[in-house]
């Protein structure tokens, strides 16, 4: 599959180059660097073909990762693999992934690239497993042979995600339900699309080999339990971590698994029906010729009075030739930020079931350029703790282990703005 893997910076300079097969030469690859990456076209073209060589690239934090290949490759697999590489590098660099961390750790990166791909074919890619037998840079940590053999068994064994013999003093498990609400409202205030893409993150600190069963208010799963009054919510589609037994879920919608150690994403899901939109925006843009715009924006929180949203940031776009703004708000702070071309209205704490208004007049400077203002949508960013836009609730998490310990369980919910936009 991949003939070579490269890491480039925005100027198209090669930071890391590892070649696996000789069917793609370095000169061919450097064409891509100069013609596409240096020309700033990479982010507009994820898959590029130059002279019969295919370059599949992804960009993150000003770094472009490229896989070059001369054959009819499985594109989805390569893109996924490149993202996996980023995860892996982050796991090794302590969460950082930028040009500096790459330059600092290049020995380690080459060592990793040796281990996770052999002759262009992906081998071991689990960060947890790899971490146990690639020492940081190969020299920092001393490792005993038994440990390495142990790691190898896991690297190639059946329960690849969990090593044997984990032991904790306090057995704890944290569940975070994180929901991203995506809303697109038309300028008239009708909902064009709304959906929730949620994820359930689990941090498990459990000893030995626990067997877990996870339950939520899924309509289909609750249909079998008649005593329940709550109807549950309908989930459009669910995707699970590889540890979940999919066969069991298909049979009776039960989610059972042996968790990996540490933080992992148990499942992601998507809901499109009956979404509780946390905020409603009511903007009015009044244009007075080419000189002035009056904006008034009413924001209403639609969730329960006991709850509150934090870090609410509303971005109200204004034309590029904005001169002076007079803004009036009752709560929070609002000011015009030229680099954003928008009025940024920040409210640290927004209680439920309440309404705030912003009024502003924008004076426009006359300019020579006749370019029409693109009118980007108003967007809002927020977090509402202990609220789920989909209405999803965790009903139970049962942990069964031979030694019969009782773990402490913590559950948190949070709803964040995904892309929450209102057109103007």
């Amino acid at each position, binding site marked *: 599959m991949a003939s070579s893997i490269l890491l480039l910076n925005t100027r198209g300079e090669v930071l890391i180059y590892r070649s696996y097969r000789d069917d793609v030469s370095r000169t061919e690859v450097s064409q891509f660097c100069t013609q596409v990456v240096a020309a700033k076209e990479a982010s507009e073209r994820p898959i590029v073909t130059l002279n019969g060589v295919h370059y599949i690239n992804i960009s993150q934090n000003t770094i472009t990762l490229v896989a070059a290949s001369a054959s009819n490759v499985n594109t989805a697999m390569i893109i996924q693999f490149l993202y996996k590489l980023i995860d892996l590098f982050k796991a090794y660099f302590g969460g950082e992934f930028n040009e500096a961390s790459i330059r600092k750790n290049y020995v380690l990166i080459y060592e990793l690239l040796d281990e996770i791909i052999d002759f262009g074919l992906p081998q071991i890619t689990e960060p947890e497993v790899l971490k146990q037998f690639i020492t940081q840079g190969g020299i920092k940590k001393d490792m005993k042979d038994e440990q390495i053999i142990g790691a190898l068994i896991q690297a190639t064994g059946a329960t690849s995600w969990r090593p044997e013999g984990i032991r904790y003093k306090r057995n704890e498990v944290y569940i975070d339900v994180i929901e991203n609400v995506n809303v697109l409202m038309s300028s008239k205030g009708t909902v064009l699309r709304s959906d929730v893409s949620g994820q359930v993150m689990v941090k498990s600190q459990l000893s030995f080999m626990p067997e877990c069963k996870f339950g939520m208010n899924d309509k289909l799963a609750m249909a079998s339990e008649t005593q329940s009054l709550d109807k549950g919510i309908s989930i459009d589609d669910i995707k699970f971590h*590889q540890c979940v037994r999919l066969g069991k879920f298909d049979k009776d919608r039960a989610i059972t698994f042996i968790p990996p150690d540490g933080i992992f994403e148990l499942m992601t899901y998507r809901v499109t029906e009956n979404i509780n939109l946390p905020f409603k925006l009511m903007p009015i843009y009044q244009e007075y010729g080419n000189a002035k715009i009056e904006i008034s924006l009413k924001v209403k929180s639609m969730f329960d009075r006991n709850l509150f949203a934090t870090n609410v940031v509303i971005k109200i776009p204004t034309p590029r030739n904005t001169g002076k703004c007079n803004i009036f708000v009752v709560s929070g702070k609002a000011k015009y930020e030229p680099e954003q071309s928008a009025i940024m209205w920040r409210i640290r704490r927004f209680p439920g079931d309440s309404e705030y208004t912003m009024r502003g007049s924008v004076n426009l400077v006359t300019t020579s350029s006749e370019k029409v203002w693109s009118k980007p949508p108003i967007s809002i960013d927020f977090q509402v703790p202990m609220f789920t836009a989909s209405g999803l609730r965790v009903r139970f998490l049962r942990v069964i282990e031979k030694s019969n310990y009782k773990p402490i369980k913590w559950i948190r919910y949070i709803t964040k703005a995904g892309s929450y936009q209102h057109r103007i």
Partner: protein
Amino acid sequence: MAGSHGPQFFVDNKKGEINELKVSLKNIMSERDNTKRRDVIKKVIAYMTLGIDVSKLFTDMVLISHTDDIVQKKMIYLYLVNYVESNQEQALMAINTFCKDCKRISSQNPKIRGLALRNLCSLRFPGAIEYILSAIQDGLSDPDPYVRKTAIIGLIKLHKYSKNLIVGSSFVNTLYELIRDIDPNVSINAILALNEILEEEGGIAINRRMVIYLLNRINSYTEFGQSTVFDLVAKYEPQAEDEMLDILNILEEKLKHSSGSVVLGCIKVFLNYTRDNQLMIRQVFARIQAPLVTLFTGAEVTGAYEQAYCILAHIHLIISKGAGGIFEGDFKSFFCKFDEPTYIKFMKIDILTMIVSDQTVEDVINELSAYVTDVNAEISKKSIQAISKVAVRIPFACVAIVRQLLSFLSLNIDYVITETLVAMKDLVRKYRELTYEILAEIENSLEIASDEGKAAIIWMIGEFGEEITDAPYIIENIISNLIANENYQITHAVLSATVRLFLKRAPEMRDILSSLYSKLISECDNPDIMDRAGFYYQLLRQDPSIANEVLNCEKHPIQNFLEDDCFDLQDILTNEFNQLSVIYQKPAKQIIKPKAELTVPEPEQVTQVVNDLLSLDQVNLSENAFKIDTEFVMVSDDFQQMWMTVPDCIKYENRLSRYINIQEVENLMASVGINCIASGDQMGTLKFFFYAKDSGSDVLFLAEFVIVLAAKEASLCVKCHDKTAAENFKRVFLQASSSFLQS
């Protein structure tokens, strides 16, 4: 500088350091403390990376390589691989070190064995092949999976180095056995290796048992492994419908997997199996809709737009295969967000035009209209094209859509106007009844539009001139402003439109037409336009009614889009689902460049033909005189008896031009009628016994042929009673072996 130190001491400084290193390497040979040993080796590597020649330390590095410490091993291997190609003697020492480390007796740690094997397999010079082969042989049966999986990849590397070394050897069978290895990574690597090694035969041979076996343990594989297995399963053809349904039932749960390539791989199996069953393919489409939507929306949320793009490309393909209906309800998921990259927006706009229906047309058109004001001109143009596509697809909405299009003209943006005019030109070709509505509005746009848009207006004036009262005056105006040599596109359009209009409204147009012709004659030097003007002139002079028939003929109404008819192409794409072909919407042979080595043999054939032509008689003569009897069969007892009695007649030695295996040699010889009675492989030495008979003179030939792979040597010994006939036999033999012997 001069100081107390003599200059020669200063010059020797570097050498001194290397000597110093040499001493410390000797000292640490008996050192137990790994940290001290590492420090010294690190120094050597540091010098090496700085570009200082430390090849002198080779012997010492080999000597201290006896260690269990993996960190030291990695560094020593790096050193050995770096210097191995510079010196033949050193190469052998390095190979020895690797071979020793590959053995279980000398290294207990499987990681070291794997590491050594991987480094050994990446060496690329002829002498190493023999050692690599035996190391791989051991590695394949190693108790540790890490070594086994490395050995399998080693086989692929060897195969790429020398095409015919592995094909046909016993390694292929071993690989088939390793698919059933207890370790999932080994199993997947074996599949990958077989696919590459047997590429020319169409990849790995798959049967029912293998499919069932792989699906039973599918959960043990990683997501990359699962994709590989699905690719394989998709190639299999189930014998009966029950079997097919069983497989699909097992696979269904995989549609919930969070990995895009696994889900797409799984869909590939579904599409391939139900390809010929219209009813089932509907069900499959309905089943895969939700997972696909989740995948791409999920990828968008996490910012993995590249993955979203890849999945959208697959959705695009599935829709163009006739699954438009199932995504209809989800049309809002394909609305573009403001901050998405252009390539995602393009894909979504395309998909929207494909899934739009009578119920959704209003929402879709409103949405597409919103993109027209996008700052990005490309998106704006694309959405106007999309709107006109929707109008063609949904006839009942066309009036509303045209009004929407007309409203764009008042935006006063040149590219929007141009694109809108072009779109409307296409629309009136299908909906002639809309003409009046459109024509009333477009005249004003003539000044702002760019060339393409102007040409579109002029075309419409020519086409519908009878319905526009002041059409002649518009044309007249255009002609008076026309600079013929400046813009061919417009000149072309004006010429056609004027002539057509003349045929419809001759009295008003007469003078205008003549003024255009005089302008063209005096100004224009474009041969195309002049040709066309001449053609019109002739046509009109001949008979205006014929000209009218030719130029203003009835046009066939447009029924559907071209891409709807390209089903053949789409079928090819089913086989290459989940691969690059889908992104480009082209079959593999159009996007993958052919391998270089395939082009080499052709010129040789050409020269052979030429030789034949020149020396036709000679060749025929010699062929008549000597022809091997292809039917002749000999039993081994006879052979043995003759071998003892007949004297050696010819001895011949040569060198191999490439590596070859037993099977291939036998096949080559059999193709010219030389049969093999016995062959064998002893530690890289291939030995063959051949026999043949001349059909004319019944002379028998016996031959012994020995190949030493490591040394690349080949020797032939022919036994025969007739010396001249033996020469003929040798010639045939060498011709057959020309592909692997040096000329």
